């Protein structure tokens, strides 16, 4: 039986990752395992080799640049993964059978536009409703189902969720943008039926997108986290 890396030495490998700018545990684990495997490989030939020396050789083979490269690539791929999931979720609403629901809501909104003369007020009401929805979500809904993890470990998955949540601040500009568009085009009431249908379509799509961003993605991230790192959840 050849020598293996002890738990104390494993902890040291985690520190090496942290010192090389890889602070997330979910990225660290495979790098730690890789370094440990490189060290154990050396011990097969030289069982008496000092851990620090074996570690030095392992890092040399691994390359310090690899740590940052792997971390940055992982962050990029995580964003891509959830963006893909989000778009898949949205597209589902334009495929059978959910298409019926989307069509009914779009048509309903289109008919509502026929009754309301001032298109601008209906659009602004929608954007203000989104603002209120975001506030309710941030302070009442999100705290109930957010991912709670132990304070001594940081996770890329959790950080991704936080960043996504913080990015919704951009939506606070939505009423202003909508108002500026109507103001710029000097339009208060849209008469063109195709344009009205287009606005209805956009509003429904944005609503589906926001639902996906606020409820579907956090749920998926939570599932992925619990599937692999449940012991770190609080």
């Amino acid at each position, binding site marked *: 039986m050849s020598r*293996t*890396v*002890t*738990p104390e030495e*494993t902890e040291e*490998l985690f520190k090496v990752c942290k010192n090389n700018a890889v602070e997330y545990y979910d990225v660290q*684990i*495979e*790098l*730690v*395992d*890789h370094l*440990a*495997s*490189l060290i*154990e490989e050396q011990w097969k030939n030289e069982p008496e080799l000092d851990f620090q020396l074996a570690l030095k050789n392992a890092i040399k083979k*691994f*390359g310090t*640049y*690899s740590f940052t*490269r*792997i971390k940055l*690539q*992982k962050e990029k*791929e*995580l964003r*891509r*993964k959830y963006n*893909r999931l989000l778009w898949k979720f949205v597209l589902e609403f334009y495929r059978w059978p959910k298409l019926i629901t989307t069509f009914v809501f779009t048509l309903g909104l289109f008919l509502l536009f026929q009754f309301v003369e001032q298109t601008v007020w209906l659009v602004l009401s929608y954007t203000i409703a989104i603002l209120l929805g975001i506030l309710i979500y941030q302070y009442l809904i999100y705290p109930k189902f957010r991912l709670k993890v132990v304070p001594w470990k940081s996770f890329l998955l959790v950080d991704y969720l936080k960043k996504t949540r913080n990015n919704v601040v951009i939506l606070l500009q939505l009423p202003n943008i909508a108002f500026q568009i109507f103001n710029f085009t000097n339009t208060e009431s849209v008469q063109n039926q195709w344009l009205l249908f287009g606005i209805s379509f956009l509003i429904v799509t944005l609503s589906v997108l926001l639902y996906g961003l606020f409820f579907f993605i956090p749920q998926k991230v939570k599932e992925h986290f619990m599937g*692999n*790192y449940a012991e770190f959840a609080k």
Partner: protein
Amino acid sequence: MQKNNLYKGSLSTIVLKLLNDKGRMYGYQITREVEKITSGDLVITEGALYPTLHKLEAKGLLSVEIQKVNNRPRKYYFLTEKGKKETVNLLIEMKTFIQNMDILLNPKLT
């Protein structure tokens, strides 16, 4: 090193093929297996392997499971159903590419 550049574009196919044959593998095991199969001709660097694994995972071609081995967590990768189908397609593509390269490099003179 020059030799390895030729394999760069095929790293995903190599990883998928290995996982298709072995079932599940961890990062270090993949690098060692490639070295073993190619008798050391092809060395996959860590800086190239892990980004490829993460990319394939993000695409939904690979899934992961974590197990404790030798007092440390080890991340195993395995093919998803989508990954199995993609591997078949990529292998067909690769074989066609190799055949075409062979024709190009060894043209039959008439």
